């Protein structure tokens, strides 16, 4: 598998800046003085073992959790300083694809996609809404499921619909929480291709949380390795694993069955 080489990244423009952020749950210190930058147009993969705070990081960035200390800057706004209304407006620029897709199970696929659109773009006509929904669903290759309920879809289809629902608001930033978790290898490849397609077609900058190294290699322009609550290694995929660090090596060996 070739390492990714996407050209359309502006390394002079920081979209998300996590600066000296710490977060603990009771006595458990999850993130400790973490620093991270996401550049315009790039796919940044955050790797780490389960329970190391990867998902907490993207929840902090999207304002679902508040940091104990430090500053998070997203598109020039300081997330922890925003009031509810400002935070809601900022979130419209951030697409969040959840680990279990988080589709509204009482709604059809069409209603799931319409929900954010109808509530946030109130001036759209019914015809425009239908067109938007169909375009985005077509983009993820699942237009045929438009009238199905989430319970009728496979895991891979649910992931795709979840991504489509976030894309419908045309976000500048995408957050993918474990996009390939629980999927078979071929579906993982489909999802990884979709993440790259989204980057190219919608010009998004993305943070992808995973512990799947094949996914990291295929979609990541840079990879950040979260170890013991800190980003110890950040760089290209090949740079990250060019090490004898006993905390990193087994990770690679296991994933590529060396």
């Amino acid at each position: 598998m070739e390492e990714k080489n996407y050209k359309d990244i502006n390394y002079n423009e920081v979209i998300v800046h996590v600066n000296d952020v710490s977060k603990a749950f009771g006595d458990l210190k999850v993130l400790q003085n973490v620093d991270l930058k996401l550049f315009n147009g790039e796919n940044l993969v955050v790797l780490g073992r389960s329970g190391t705070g990867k998902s907490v990081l993207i929840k902090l960035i999207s304002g679902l959790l508040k940091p104990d200390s430090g500053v998070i800057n997203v598109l020039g706004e300081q997330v922890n300083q925003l009031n509810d209304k400002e935070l809601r407006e900022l979130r419209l620029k951030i697409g969040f694809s959840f680990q279990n897709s988080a589709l509204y199970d009482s709604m059809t696929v069409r209603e799931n996609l319409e929900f954010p659109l109808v509530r946030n773009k109130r001036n759209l006509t019914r015809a425009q809404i239908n067109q938007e929904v169909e375009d985005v669903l077509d983009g993820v290759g699942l237009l045929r499921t438009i009238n199905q309920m989430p319970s009728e879809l496979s895991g891979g289809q649910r992931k795709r619909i979840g991504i489509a629902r976030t894309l419908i608001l045309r976000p500048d930033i995408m957050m993918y929480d474990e996009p390939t978790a629980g999927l078979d290898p071929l579906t993982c490849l489909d999802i990884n291709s979709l993440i790259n397609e989204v980057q190219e077609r919608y010009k998004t900058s993305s943070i992808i949380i995973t512990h799947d190294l094949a996914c990291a290699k295929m979609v990541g322009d840079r990879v950040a390795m979260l170890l013991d609550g800190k980003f110890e290694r950040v760089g290209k995929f090949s740079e990250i694993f060019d090490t004898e660090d006993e905390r990193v090596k087994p990770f690679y060996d296991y994933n590529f069955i060396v």
Partner: protein
Amino acid sequence: MNSAKYKYLMTRKFETLLLEFANLHRFLMRFFREVVSPPFEIKEIIRQCYEIGWKSFPLISLTGFIVGFVFTKQSRPSLEEFGATSWLPALISIAIVRALAPLVTALIASGKVGSQIGAELSSMNVTEQIDAMEVSGTNPFKYLIVSRIIATTFMIPILCFYVAGIGLAGGYLSIISKDQLSVLSYITQVFEAIAPKDIFAMVFRSVAFGFTIGFVSTYVGYYSSKGTEGVGKAANSAVVASMFIVFIEELLIVQILALLG
């Protein structure tokens, strides 16, 4: 258990209780803040009124009818001893309007609506649907919580009037199974026995019960613990806590109304 450990455990329990009260207070204050601030979720409120109110009609109808019928049947022998069966319509109307209709409606709604809301919100919480709503620019508190509390507060009084009507119909059928009494005469006696303050008390009770059921079940659902066990616990707590508080409220309201005369 030594005394130091016992003291530590009691302190922790007391702290947990205080935190729960603080959380309840914050939830209540947020409800009052959100309920008056636009945008108003009219469509969702109407949908919830349909879910909570309209879909409860079959169960409420059966229960209300049985309560009226059985209550009349059981009251008859006592009145017969004094040759006072002609007082049955008055007795039924007072019992139903003053106590049975609001209480039966609230208990049925606690079971049906409370468990439904608790389980639904809790499973949305577990599957991150509430977070998904939040990140897609929707205020989940307003959309999910405020709409449901408004719907229960509005629909339980309507259901209560319906239960009163259907209970009185059950009572009438029970009477005519033994005696002869025209519908007009029955209705006249029913309305002669109740005063406007009884109607007011019924409305007051059912509004309080409706708000309680909505508030308690949304609270336990919204703050449920993660996992499938959390869903079961939330559904169960919604019913148990709603019923418990409804009974406490009934006791307080009866005392207050007695004091007011």
